């Protein structure tokens, strides 16, 4: 990424004209002009003018991997909170177990956490998720951390660089949900380190050279311990 200053834009800010560019996400068009509609970072490297949100709930996209918390077990489905504006539906047909009618509570209960995939988002924003994939399952042990969904790309890093660093130096298992929930499992110290590092990334997500800075800190920490 070039060393351009990362520009913050706010709703109603004029960003360009449809004569010159196309309106991407986080923008709206009025009278041939493109405006920002959310608080975010301006991205107009390409043909599109996009605004990457700085805040806000998770906006579900099909195929996204998310961490959900079961809210309610119903007779042939569960209602799951995935930090979106709406709860998601998990149908008994979308889990790897053979669940009889009315037996849903035997498998998933209020407060259980799952690693899931967004199956469908319809026009009324009704959401469905699935557990039917090789790396999806009910979570046990570990800790779940909440971050702003908009910070998830930074925590994962370019081609997973940031998250690989974390895994390497803390020896923890880490799964980052697109919905801003992160599951960590490992030693007490490892988990603590992951939590603190992620909090730091969250606070400094827009600074340059963050990956290097984090790597240095993690290296130093590991040296101090041994």
């Amino acid at each position, binding site marked *: 990424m070039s060393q351009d200053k990362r520009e913050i834009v706010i709703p109603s800010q004029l960003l360009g004209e449809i004569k010159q560019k196309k309106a991407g996400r986080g923008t709206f068009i009025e009278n041939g002009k493109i405006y920002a509609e959310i608080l975010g970072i301006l991205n107009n490297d390409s043909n599109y003018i996009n605004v990457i949100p700085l805040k806000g709930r998770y906006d579900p996209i099909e195929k996204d991997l998310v961490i959900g918390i079961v809210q309610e077990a119903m007779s042939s489905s569960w209602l799951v909170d995935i930090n979106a504006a709406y709860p998601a539906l998990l149908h008994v047909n979308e889990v790897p177990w053979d669940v009889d009618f009315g037996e849903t509570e035997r498998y998933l*209960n209020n*407060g259980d*956490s799952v690693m899931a995939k967004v199956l469908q988002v319809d026009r009324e924003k009704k959401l469905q998720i699935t557990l039917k994939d090789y790396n999806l399952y009910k979570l046990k042990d*570990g800790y779940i951390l909440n971050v702003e969904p908009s910070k998830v790309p930074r925590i994962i890093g370019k081609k997973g660089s940031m998250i690989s660093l974390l895994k390497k130096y803390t020896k923890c298992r880490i799964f980052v949900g697109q919905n801003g929930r992160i599951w960590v499992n490992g030693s007490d110290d490892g988990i603590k380190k992951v939590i603190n590092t992620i909090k730091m990334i969250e606070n400094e997500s827009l600074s340059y050279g963050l990956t290097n800075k984090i790597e240095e800190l993690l290296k130093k920490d590991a040296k101090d311990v041994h």
Partner: protein
Amino acid sequence: MTITPAIKKDYLVKLANSGKRADGRRFDEFRKIEIKTGIVLKAEGSARVKIGNTQVVAGIKMDVGEPYPDTPEQGVMSTAAELIPLASPDFESGPPREDAIELARVVDRGIRESEVIEVDKLCIEPKEKVWIIFIDIHILDYDGNLFDAASLASLAALMTSKVPAKRFELGEDYPLPLKEPPISCTSAKYNGVVVIDPALDEEEIAEARLTVATDQNGDIRAMQKGLNGSFSKDEINKVIKVSIDNGKKIREQLYNSIGK
């Protein structure tokens, strides 16, 4: 209602077994406390207290009214608490639920039973006119331990209040007559460990809760046990000691913040 993941509960319990808390505090350590008084100019006294991320504002308003028939020469005090929807995704607007009522009553008792307000000095005309004191507590941000935050905010507000005599043509304004207040400290028990100043996630898994109010001599002035778990006598003794120690520190901070 926001549901806490079961994993989080298990994690807190696991940490507790190794003598740790999720935010790194010791079992006998309070979160950072901030006290600011005189923040609402319309009120006779006011204070904003932060304990960690929990934020509470208390305001004191006074009026002239009739005394209770059985205490014809004493002022009257009344405490109300609002768990306004501002403070948590789970608070709804509407008439106060039991949580708000319990909170108000516990704070009220702490002040009333220890006779912090010298109600004998608030009589204007026996049987006819006395000063009425309204304590209104507004929770702005809920992250655990509302009892201590609300109690501390109420005390700080009272200790900087002026009786608005001028407005009622009863002379010059003067400081509200008060005695040394007791400081309340709340502890919670989960999975066999007892921690002071429970944060929200600790409160969510607490089995039992104990609030102890102590005075400047280290004497006990009020106690309140809550929730349906139990305490051993040993645990209670420990809680009392920790409450006395923290009570001292908080009292010092309170006096500093009101400029005493």
